[in-house]
């Protein structure tokens, strides 16, 4: 298989398989969560938890208020840099928007490529820093398992291959583009079976957390 055939495959059958497994797996994961059910709260509520739940879904993405956390500044800075970078790269590069548009019909204006490029570098650097931190920190080292490193690799590879493809580093573009798409497909395939599910489930988790706290009158 030459690189053109490889590219053809990853854009066609490869993507099809990856999306199939991704949707298949994620729906299982989500339904398993929702169908477990929970008991209704019978206590006299201070407020409806709905607004608080919705707020927490968003608020936990925002920087914590000044006095909340002083120490893990590194985790916050690198964490934000990586996630914001990833978000910009995924959703604001023209070729990516083209993919989304062709699949869903939705489109929006892209950012200039050099800007996206800068965010890619920010993300890559932040991810390397986070990896180093995970390995070097006694706390995180203790907490980490193979799944953490697998998820890191699955996320890092698309960024790296994308960056290499854009800059035509070391290999011809065709092969790099194919490798880039393949790395995204690997990400999609393993997504439902790793901690990457947090992309979706944190909103459910935050909803429950915020709602349960909100019913008690605490904005969490």
């Amino acid at each position: 298989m030459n690189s053109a055939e490889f590219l053809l495959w990853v854009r066609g059958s490869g993507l099809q398989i990856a999306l199939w497994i991704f949707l298949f797996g994620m729906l299982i994961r989500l339904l398993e969560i929702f169908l477990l059910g929970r008991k209704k709260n019978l206590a006299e509520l201070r407020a409806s938890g709905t607004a608080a739940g919705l707020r927490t879904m968003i608020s936990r993405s925002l920087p914590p208020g000044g006095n909340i956390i002083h120490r893990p500044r590194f985790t916050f800075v690198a964490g934000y840099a990586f996630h914001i970078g990833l978000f910009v790269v995924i959703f604001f590069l023209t070729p990516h928007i083209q993919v989304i548009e062709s699949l869903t019909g939705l489109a929006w204006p892209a950012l200039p490529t050099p800007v996206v490029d800068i965010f890619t570098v920010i993300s890559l650097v932040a991810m390397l820093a986070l990896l180093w931190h995970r390995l070097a920190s006694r706390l995180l080292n203790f907490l980490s398992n193979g799944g953490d490193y697998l998820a890191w690799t699955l996320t890092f590879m698309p960024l790296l291959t994308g960056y290499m493809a854009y800059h035509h580093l070391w290999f011809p573009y065709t092969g790099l583009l194919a490798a880039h798409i393949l790395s995204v497909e690997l990400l999609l395939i393993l997504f439902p079976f790793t901690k990457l599910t947090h992309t979706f489930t944190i909103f459910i988790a935050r909803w429950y957390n915020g709602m349960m706290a909100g019913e008690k009158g605490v904005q969490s």
Partner: protein
Amino acid sequence: MNKERTLGEILRQQGVSRRGFLKFCATTASLMALPPGMVPTIARALENARRPSVIWLSFQECTGCTESLTRSHAPTIEGLIFDAISLDYHHTLQAAAGSAAEQARESAMKENFGNYLLVVDGSIPLANAGFSTIAGTSNLEILKEVAKGAAAIIAVGTCAAYGGLPHAKPNPTGAVPVSAIISDKPIVNVPGCPPIPVVISGVLTHFLTFGRLPDLDHLGRPLAFYGNNIHDRCYRRPFYERGQFAESFDDEGARKGWCLYKLGCKGPVTYNACATTKWNNGTSFPIESGHGCLGCSEPDFWDMGGFYRALSEPIGLSARTVAGGAIGGAALGAASGLLNRKKKAEALARHEKIGVDELKDGETK
């Protein structure tokens, strides 16, 4: 024409000045990324070269490659180089026909065994030998026979190089490129649909100057001509970087000459000299005329998901199959979720009330 005459003599006879000849040598050297110091070497080698014997085999092709090489707008030096070789066999161009033509080929092969160049355009059908024959002989047989005595093979055009259009899905003739059949001869691929004329003359010049084929890339193409990416060399690249794209062929962006990526330009995956060498005596290249690159010098360019589809877009994805995953996941997820609920209900049913006596009287205590 007398085969004993050198290339230099022929060119002078045709009215090419010394100055013009050196200019050609310099241009060729620069195109092939050779140092300027090589120009006299090229000139000397070309001047003294004997006209090489060339056998040109046309298989499943459209004659576009030949047209491109011979029908230049005005006579060019590369055209003259082309004239100057001893083209001993070429369907379209030779005067001889029928058995006389085949005899010409056989005698050229015999006379120059081991030294002649074999140029192939078109792909070779393997599904059925009868799909493409010349004088009753299949393409496969002729290729194998002629290749035996060839010093090197130049696969001209994407069909000969990578299978090209006949190879496109569903490939009814089982078309394959030359390289799929011949493995014991040096092959240089000069893909393009058609290839740029100067690339042919460049390869010939290299062969005549150095006695060997030029350096090739991973797809068997001369690096000197196919080393550059169209997208990298495209004058519209700044629009890509700025995110300015033509959305249709008649919108404001198209009129302003913005990037054609969204209209399916294959520049980013295409390696060719179009953006620098250009066509029609350096007039322009497709993107300059307002149409995206088709990627014609790349394998399978016909099957790259449609000419007007952006390069990153998925190909042939059916909503049905993807929805299949969703429906399958939903069904299995629902089944699993319901089983979990049942398990939880059973656990609740099994629940035995715990009092302080149990706490005081634990299994491990």
